């Protein structure tokens, strides 16, 4: 049975009919055209589908769309609404990503970290992004880029 859910998506109100067994990731990507969260594993193991739910990073592949009724969702598209963030600029400068598939997920995790803790040390950064898998980079430049932002602020 379909039901209507209402939530804020990247600052805008959204109203959409979903079936209870639809996952947030699929609703965002297939029905709302929000493509930055990626499908990496579908089981909550890789972080590629990360989005912010009320400011906290969650895995949209193991979240039911009905769960976000009345909540606030922010994706990479929302973070960059007013231009590149400092974090994104730093990612760019550090060549942080290679294939880039994991980039939106890392951006969400790192944004959450910097919001809670503007000056994390390297260890805190590694802990905070350890749920995001990247197969290409070895994490060196991702960590370096976040550290750079943490030092500047």
């Amino acid at each position, binding site marked *: 049975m379909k039901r209507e859910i209402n939530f804020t998506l990247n600052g805008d109100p959204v109203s959409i009919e979903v079936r209870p067994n639809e996952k947030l990731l699929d609703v965002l990507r297939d029905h709302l055209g929000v493509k930055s969260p990626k*499908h990496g594993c579908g089981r909550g193991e890789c972080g590629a589908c990360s989005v912010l739910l009320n400011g906290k990073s969650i895995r949209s592949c193991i979240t039911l769309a009905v769960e976000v009724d009345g909540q606030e969702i922010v994706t990479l598209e929302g973070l960059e609404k007013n231009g590149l963030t400092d974090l*994104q600029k730093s*990612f*760019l400068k550090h060549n942080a990503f290679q*294939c880039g598939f994991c980039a939106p997920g890392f951006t969400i995790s790192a944004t959450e970290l910097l919001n809670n803790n503007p000056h994390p040390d390297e260890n805190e950064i590694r802990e905070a992004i350890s749920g995001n898998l990247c*197969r*290409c980079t070895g994490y060196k430049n991702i960590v370096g880029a976040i550290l750079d932002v943490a030092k500047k602020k």
Partner: protein
Amino acid sequence: MKKLKYVGKNAVRIDGLAKITGAAEYTDDIEFGPKLLFVGVLESPYAHALIKNIDTSEAEKVPGVRAVISGKDFPEKFGLYLKDNSIFPIDRVRYVGEQVAAVIATTQEIADNAVKLIKVDYEPLPVLQSPLDAIKPDAVLIHPDLGSYEVVPWLYPQPGTNIAHVRKIRKGNVDKAFKEADFVLEDWYHVPHVVHAPLETHISVSLFTLDGRLTMWNSTQSPHTQRNIIAHSLKIPHKDVRVIASFVGGGFGGKAGINMEVIGAVAAMKVPGHPVKVRWTRKQEFENTSQRQELYAHIKMGVKKDGTITALEHKLYWDVGASAEYGSNVVNATGFSATGPYRIPNVSIDSYAIYTNRPPCGAYRGFGYSEFHFGLESHIDRMAKMLKMDPVEFRKKNAISRKDKVAYGVEMNPTGIQECIDKVAEAIEWGKEDKSPDPNKIRAKGFASAWKAPAMPPNESSAAFIKFSEDGSINILVSGMELGQGFMTAMAKIAAEELSLPLEKIRVELPDTDRNPYEWQTVASHVTWSCGNAVRRAAIDARNQILETVSRAYHIDKSNLYLEDGQVKSYTDSEFKLPFENFVINGIEMPDGTYRGGPIMGKGMFMPEFSSAKVNPETGQGGHPNVHYTTGAGAVEIEIDKETGRIKVLKAAEAFDAGKAINPDLVKDQIVGGFVQGLGTALWEEVKFDKNGRILNPNFTDYKIPTALDVPPVMIPIIVEVPQPDGPFGARGIAEHTMIPVMPAVANAVENALGVRIKSVPLTPEKILNALKEKEEK
């Protein structure tokens, strides 16, 4: 040589902005509209069984199902080198997870549910899971029709056995050399199956229209090769097959050649006018793409007291899984190169591609070299110990140098291996002891060298177009693939250098086989070299056109003209400056109002015309199968917790001879990324199978790839540059190579720490503790 302005300088990657903003479009991000259909795949529950009957009638009745397809609809075989793979198997399944039938439906859910209604009668057959069993004379045959398959002339399938190919190298006289050697050591080494685990799983969207055109949007490293295989297998003219490649979310060889895309192609042909999507789940990515071959290697090596290696016998038993269509070339390539980067006068190599009932194996970053280097570089350390020689010294003494003959008789290309070894030894502070403050922990270092050649057919080729636009900017059309390795940036810089055009004025386009010129595939770490040569030639061609036009219009001799910062200038007239945008499309106006010139469009192509796969099958001599080798070295410092057996890598260093690093920062990023991927295989990664051939860990919960917490805090990437004479600006590839030294370097460090030699990877805590226990009991 003239001073380089772009090549060799650092710049941010040109695809960086697309990737950090989410603008980069991957195949699954493309919208295909309401006519899109989805494919569900029925997978074999058996590793080996005869198919007695397939009944799809119930599935066909499900509302929303458009078609059900199986081997009776598409009996064609396909493959890159050896056509032993089925779009759908007709009479037997050969591994758990193999596609048996597919349902095309309006939603993925309907398709997946309908799949469950397909009934298949199987008759189970004995399951072979080890190449050492499968090679036995009485083993059940996995491909009884092996003799009838189409195959390239340089592979030698052995009908009536499970051997898909054997590559032999014979040089000198090993028997005599072993007799004359002062020390001889022989042993077995084992490397299990691992998976590529790109973050993006395989995906293919295909559209067949009634005008006979098949368009595919694939996540692929090989658009033209896919087009070729599909056109050939399905008998569609090449011009009517179009493969469009979006950004790829990681390849590592797993998206080379073709695999699940064939299902998409045939599904689309069943429902003309509908785009059809096949997207692998993470589980399917484990079960039904390609894996890395498992290897059992037997090494026998002889040395003289002075530390000279005199003989090597290397037997490689590769588990290529149920299909060798691609993996046979891994076996072939490593057969030629299994001496490693050493000068060895007497060599005997047998490299066997052996079928088993495990998923098909194929290209994986390193193309078999990581696997054989594990044994070889472990063995090198052990020989050095027998000789009481420092293992780094031993490597340097025997390292191959320019003009030495490799095992198949060809001269070695210029190489910086000595410098790589020295620089790594320096970076890791080889010889300096380091103690852990924790009494439970012990520290040690380990070293390994490496080499690798691109494994390619002798007539592989690359081509490029450079198109100018009104504002003097260019689009480079190539079909090399940006996999994250920095291909686009490298191509842009090569063109920038020849055209003296700033990078901001250059775009490199993703492949579309209709519009972009030919590229064999983005594999073998060869595109910087091969496609780079094509782009360079295209740029030189465009430059000549520019100079020609300006020369004709202004009556200045071409030799007096040059390009600088997007302008044509003259050596003889310092006032003369003609910006590209003034003429590259619209030409140059003459006093009489006529124009000279027209759109500038450079073209270039490259084929290594010296390469030949024609060798004596018994000795491997007589041809020129590899174009060149890239060499390097790597080392680690580890810390082992003696109580838990856990290994932590504290520091790593690797050096590779890139010939000329087009963009040094991105070369270093390849070294770091490759090291970490290698670390995964050294410490954690292994596909585990149950006794029926089913994978026990087809997910990231139980197949552990390194996280940000598991990588060494210090990783030192080093670039060495001994130019490759036929490379663009001297460049050669390094991307795959970076994985190769890691497994043996860690194993060597373990022996240096604990005095135990572990001969199989991954080096799990359990193996460490068991080895320690054995040592104590002795």
